[in-house]
């Protein structure tokens, strides 16, 4: 079957409402769930917009994650640490490399980290309170800069074994990498500084190992010849970028959503045991990774009635799958008690599903519960329309979130 000659959409169309994925997705799911989209380099790929089709593609080994595979959709932007990394390998190499990391992010090992995550959150909230007091009246605190960014930054520092005295410099480089305020060349320079920092960090741990993920990889894997120094550095960069920007933006959007849905916030404040479900719904509702998982077909495969040929590229629109009314009734409504919200694909699906998902859940649950408890009067310090959304970034969220109480 030949594809209809449609005028191709861009692979990542802009959002309309700040809380909704691109409006074209709803039309595509009905009219052309496997459609052609254009890529920055002038080539095209298949865009998959229905939930069942997205899950089928992401769990089918005939679709390769290797960016060197023929037809792999080029995004024009390569995230630091992406090329040649875990997320760009297929089984069995992927399985071997992923299993080096899973022990550090199991449900159990993340549970053991929870008290420390709570402590970090409490310290950041103390600092927020002090900053608000110092600002006088009227005054505001930027929740992104004061909590959403530094929390995942501190947690990943802990996991990677970044020494305490380096936290400030590490966080400042990371913030520059992520910021829009800085020009692209400043961000590129910060990325280079970050890689230099990580190379030195790994070299230091080769001499003086500690009790952290990188030291573990160096001791167990580099020693056995399974990983090179550069691969350990690449893993550090991937963990840092992947585990950082996504969580930071979800914390900001999560807090903003609770401000926009005060009834939900009140329910959660009264009964914090509802928070895990609410976090799943927030993940479904926002689906912050704008550039969905990309694959290249290694065989002719039919998806949603369309034959995808070997050597053709595929992009899975996770945000669209998460708003598919066939799976999530009233998909555009935010319902913290939604029965099946955990079926979302915000973490992707298949063997590449987010490695750090237990960590992300813990950080989101703890930060949002703490915000609700400590700042019952929390409100936006600007109009909702004036919140600067990250419509220009690969990971969606807010650039800043001015709040007061």
């Amino acid at each position: 079957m030949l594809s209809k000659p449609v005028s191709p959409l861009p692979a990542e169309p802009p959002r309309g409402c700040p809380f909704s994925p691109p409006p074209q997705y709803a039309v595509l799911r009905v009219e052309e769930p496997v459609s052609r989209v254009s890529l920055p380099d002038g080539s095209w790929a298949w865009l998959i917009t229905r939930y069942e089709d997205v899950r089928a593609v992401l769990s089918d080994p005939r679709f390769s994650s290797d960016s060197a595979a023929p037809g792999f959709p080029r995004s024009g932007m390569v995230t630091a640490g992406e090329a040649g990394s875990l997320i760009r390998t297929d089984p069995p190499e992927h399985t071997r490399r992923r299993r080096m990391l899973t022990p550090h992010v199991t449900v159990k090992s993340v549970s053991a980290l929870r008290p420390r995550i709570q402590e970090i959150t409490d310290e950041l909230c103390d600092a927020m309170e002090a900053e608000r007091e110092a600002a006088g009246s009227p005054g505001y605190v930027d929740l992104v800069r004061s909590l959403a960014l530094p929390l995942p930054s501190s947690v990943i520092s802990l996991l990677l074994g970044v020494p305490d005295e380096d936290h400030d410099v590490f966080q400042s480089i990371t913030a520059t990498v992520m910021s829009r305020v800085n020009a692209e060349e400043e961000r590129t320079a910060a990325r280079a500084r970050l890689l230099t920092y990580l190379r030195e960090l790994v070299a230091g741990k080769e001499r003086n190992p500690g009790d952290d993920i990188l030291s573990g990889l160096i001791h167990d894997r580099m020693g056995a010849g399974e990983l090179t120094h550069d691969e350990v550095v690449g893993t550090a960069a991937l963990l840092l970028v992947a585990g950082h920007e996504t969580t930071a933006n979800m914390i900001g959007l999560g807090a903003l959503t609770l401000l926009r849905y005060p009834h939900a916030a009140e329910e959660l404040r009264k009964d914090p045991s509802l928070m895990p479900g609410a976090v799943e719904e927030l993940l479904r509702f926002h689906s912050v990774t704008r550039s969905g998982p990309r694959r290249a077909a290694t065989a002719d495969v039919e998806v949603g009635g369309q034959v995808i040929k070997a050597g053709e590229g595929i992009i899975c629109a996770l945000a669209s799958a998460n708003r598919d009314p066939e799976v999530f009734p009233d998909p555009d409504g935010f319902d913290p008690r939604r029965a099946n919200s955990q079926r979302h694909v915000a973490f992707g699906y298949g063997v590449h599903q987010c490695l750090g998902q237990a960590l992300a859940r813990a950080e989101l649950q703890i930060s949002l519960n703490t915000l609700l408890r400590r700042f019952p009067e929390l409100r936006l310090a600007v109009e909702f329309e004036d919140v600067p959304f990250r419509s220009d970034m690969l990971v969606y969220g807010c650039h800043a979130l001015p709040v007061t109480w």
Partner: protein
Amino acid sequence: MKITFDEEKCCGAGQCVLVAPEVFDQDDDGIVVLLNPSPSDDLREAVEEAAAVCPANVIHVE
């Protein structure tokens, strides 16, 4: 109810542990461990949900 799984293909996401903690656990390497191979029927819904959300599709329920 009979549960089988393919630990070779487990990717250690831990979703099953969150959905049905009475039945599933992860070993120290993150690989799925069955705490109870034939749980009572009141756990069927949770077990089926765990199978449905498993990203590597390795849990099967009869």
